[in-house]
């Protein structure tokens, strides 16, 4: 996160991590397509001929809180998933405020997901960080494919795990906004808790998410987006202080298609 007090400007950096070909770039492309022209910049992809990310992809999003108010910039970056680009991943990870881990739902990719997660952990360690320091959301992508980890299985894992989980079909844009706002939510909570952003920039947690939602021109209601998290509700206030121990058994009704809850307002 970077704050420019003179310009009243806050920049946060979200990184999409995950194994090769899990759909990180696709997520970014869909996010680009699903957000309003006014708030999004050009999608920059630094990739090779065969569409594999070489250095990173970057989608800048920017909007103003209110007239004369602080402006918020969100940079969404993807890492190159291929194993050889280890050092590049570490560079991209530097200064990240939150991570969306894009996993491939296919059963056959289970090991690659795990390897990439371990890679993330060791890269964070090299940067002097732990997973606990880093707001993280997990996305199980490619839900349209056959031979995937079942939803029940993922729900079960979500309950035991620390991270909120979203299901997605990034090619069709499904679950892309849900994951993004989920990540933005917990990242903001963390930043707010650590930097008193409300006091310094006049941006409160309660207003930032609806503001981003409005400025990015997203049609689906925010509460509906956030209600899609598996395991427990992302709008749960415990994310506002994510360093503490998890309250067990406090999960909401999990799953895609469950009745929307009134989330988003802690």
């Amino acid at each position: 996160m970077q704050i420019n007090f003179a310009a009243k400007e806050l920049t946060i950096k979200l990184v999409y991590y995950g194994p090769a070909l899990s759909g990180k770039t696709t997520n970014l492309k869909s996010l680009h397509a699903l957000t309003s022209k006014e708030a999004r910049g050009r999608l920059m992809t630094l990739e090779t001929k065969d569409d594999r990310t070489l250095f990173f992809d970057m989608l800048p999003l920017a909007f103003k809180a209110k007239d004369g108010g602080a402006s918020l910039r969100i940079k969404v970056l993807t890492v190159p998933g291929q194993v050889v680009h280890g050092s590049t991943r570490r560079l991209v990870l530097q200064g990240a405020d939150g991570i969306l881990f894009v996993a491939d739902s296919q059963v056959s990719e289970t090991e690659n997901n795990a390897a990439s997660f371990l890679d993330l952990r060791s890269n964070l360690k090299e940067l002097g960080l732990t997973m606990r320091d880093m707001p993280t959301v997990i996305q199980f992508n490619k839900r349209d494919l056959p031979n995937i980890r079942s939803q029940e299985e993922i729900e079960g894992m979500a309950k035991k795990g620390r991270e909120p989980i979203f299901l997605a079909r990034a090619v069709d844009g499904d679950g892309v906004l849900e994951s993004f706002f989920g990540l933005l939510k917990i990242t903001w909570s963390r930043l707010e808790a650590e930097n008193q952003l409300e006091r310094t920039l006049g941006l409160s947690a309660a207003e930032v998410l609806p503001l981003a939602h409005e400025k990015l021109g997203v049609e689906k209601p925010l509460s509906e987006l956030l209600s899609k998290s598996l395991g427990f509700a992302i709008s749960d206030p415990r994310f506002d202080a994510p360093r503490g121990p998890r309250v067990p058994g406090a999960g909401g009704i999990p799953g895609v298609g469950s009745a929307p809850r009134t989330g988003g307002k802690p």
Partner: protein
Amino acid sequence: MNTPQRQSWRPGGEELSDVKLEDLVSREGLLELVESVVDLFGIPIRVYSASNGLLADAAHDQEVCNYVNTFGSGRTLCGTTVSAAKSASPGETGSALHACFTGNSYRIVALEYETRNVGRLIIGPYLPAATVEVPLTLTAVEGVEPEKARVYLARMPRAKEDTIQRIADHFKRALDLIMFAGHKTFLTSQMHLAAVTESFREMQEKNRRLEEANTRLRELDRLKSNFLATVSHELRTPLTSIIGYSEMLSEGLAGDMNQEQREFVLTIREKGEQLLGLISGLLDLSKLESGTLSVKRKVVSVRSIADTALSTVAPNAKKKGVNLATNIASSVVDITVDPDRFRQVFINLLDNAIKFTPENGTITIVAKNIGMMESDGEDDDQDGFSLLTPVDPRIEIRILDTGIGIPQNERAKVFDAFYQVDSSSTREFGGTGLGLSIVKRLVEAHGGTVHVEGNEPQGTAFVVRIPASGMPPRGT
């Protein structure tokens, strides 16, 4: 891209806050873009950086401007207008109008990249399309003739405000695209540099760790050799006594023994000698490994070494019913080696050959001069002979047997200490598994190589190659 690389550069970090228009787009490129728009609409355009530096200027003098500048007060007014236009703010909306006393207009347009201000565009002067009269502010200038002013003003490019706005929008879009491309190139090169640096750092780090591990291993190895040397030496002393006394016993120096007693004592002696052999081998090996074995070189003939070695193993061979033969070309040059050590090489190889060759087999020592450098192939074809011929002539010695042979995949391993192809053979043939590792180290101490080949159709060939000088070849 002349933004200097900052130490903490990171993708998606704060690098954009100070991105400058002039860093993303070359001046030449910018000028070309400006000129293309000026050619199209005939209206002057200038581009300023965020810090007010003029980056591109495709304005040409207008007649009315030249005309007012011929009068003192006109010149003053013109100067004020132009400098005011230059520093005028495009305002909140990003686009502002600035009027000239001649009735012309300037439009000042903010240039942005990713919602950050990177400079200004000044379009003009142009005459607003609606103008019909020569404005009073122009005719009021002392010396200006209204008729002339009307004529010059009529020659000004005219434009409607929304046309100007469209020109500005078009220009901004084109420029944005160019800046994006420039930015992408900038990031790519930064990223490339950073990734290479990072990979290099990583590799250095790994190398350092490997080197450390290597040093530690070498140290351990040295300790092990020292330990072995000490232990072997300490073991040898009492063992020599055991052997000596059992020898005296069996010779009846301490009184007569019955048959059974003598057999027992002989067994003690035999096993003692076996043990001594093992310990000597270990001692040799550890000396060789620690590099403390002294090599006293002399010029000797291959034949003389072969002959003494053969005479040593002859009784053994005879007992086993194995024939010994030599085939040493008369042209074979003398070698400069430590004769005792080199005889040890021959003896070890011959001992093995006898051990693993059944009755009526034959063991042959073959020696010849060779030209080829390090060709461990089965056949010495002469490709590239002139290039591969070493400065030192080399001698190749082959010890051939017709025994059980060594399978292809075992051929490299037999030189490892204590390695035996079939450890059950120890029971049948005896041996410690040290012989060949001693051979290898001795040969290498003389700058040579040793490897195993098959001896067609049956048996094993041990191939020893050494420089005739017995020194490592030059350049290694």
